[in-house]
């Protein structure tokens, strides 16, 4: 039986069509499920393994969150079936204490699962950049 070599396993690489604000040099990231509960993912820069973001799907944390993704974004990500293609992820800031982690609701990362293109968009809504993730 052959066992896949960890160094050759193909990881889902995603390409940001516009750079993530603050990181103009990094466009290619690997999205990996970090924990086995399926709640936390890591976006790791291909060029710099020390550059990682923790991201989470919004639904378990903010059930009412429904970002409006405009046609320009759908086109930029070359999405043909937005309802099925697009994945919404929130960038999490852990900081000093994990209990005080926050998520960026104003600027979600939208990923097209089919084309593996992504972009961090800014919603035209009054939403916090640092919303408590584990609010009571």
């Amino acid at each position, binding site marked *: 039986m052959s066992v896949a070599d960890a160094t050759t396993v193909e990881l889902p690489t995603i390409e940001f*069509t*516009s750079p*993530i*604000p*603050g*990181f103009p040099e990094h466009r290619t990231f690997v999205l990996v499920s*970090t*924990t*086995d*509960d*399926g*709640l*936390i993912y*890591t976006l790791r820069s291909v060029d710099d393994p*020390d*550059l*990682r*973001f*923790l991201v989470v799907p919004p639904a*378990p944390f903010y059930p009412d969150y429904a970002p409006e993704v405009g046609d*320009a974004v759908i*086109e*930029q990500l070359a999405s043909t079936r937005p309802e099925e293609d697009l994945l919404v992820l929130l*960038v*999490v*800031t*852990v*900081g000093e204490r*994990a*209990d005080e*982690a926050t998520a*960026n609701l*104003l*600027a979600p990362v939208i990923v097209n699962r089919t084309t593996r293109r992504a*972009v*961090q968009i*800014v919603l035209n809504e009054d939403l916090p*950049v*640092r919303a408590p*993730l*584990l609010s009571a």
Partner: protein
Amino acid sequence: MLVLTRRAGESVRIGDDVTVTVLDVRGDVVRVGIQAPRSVSVHRDEVYRELRNANQQAVVSTDAAADALSAALRRTGRYPAR
């Protein structure tokens, strides 16, 4: 900084494919329209700065933060493992 005087309806072109048009001026409020390729993101400067700061603060260099966050999630008891 390059300083140009423009009237409502007049534009400035930046590079080959970005156009900034002054739409109207009322008191101390100026409305501008921006035409740029889709790959060029356009943000209000204060929003961009806040987003950049938030992203820079969100960077982690190891999986330790993910483990700590995962443990914090488990402690709440609200997010059952799938």
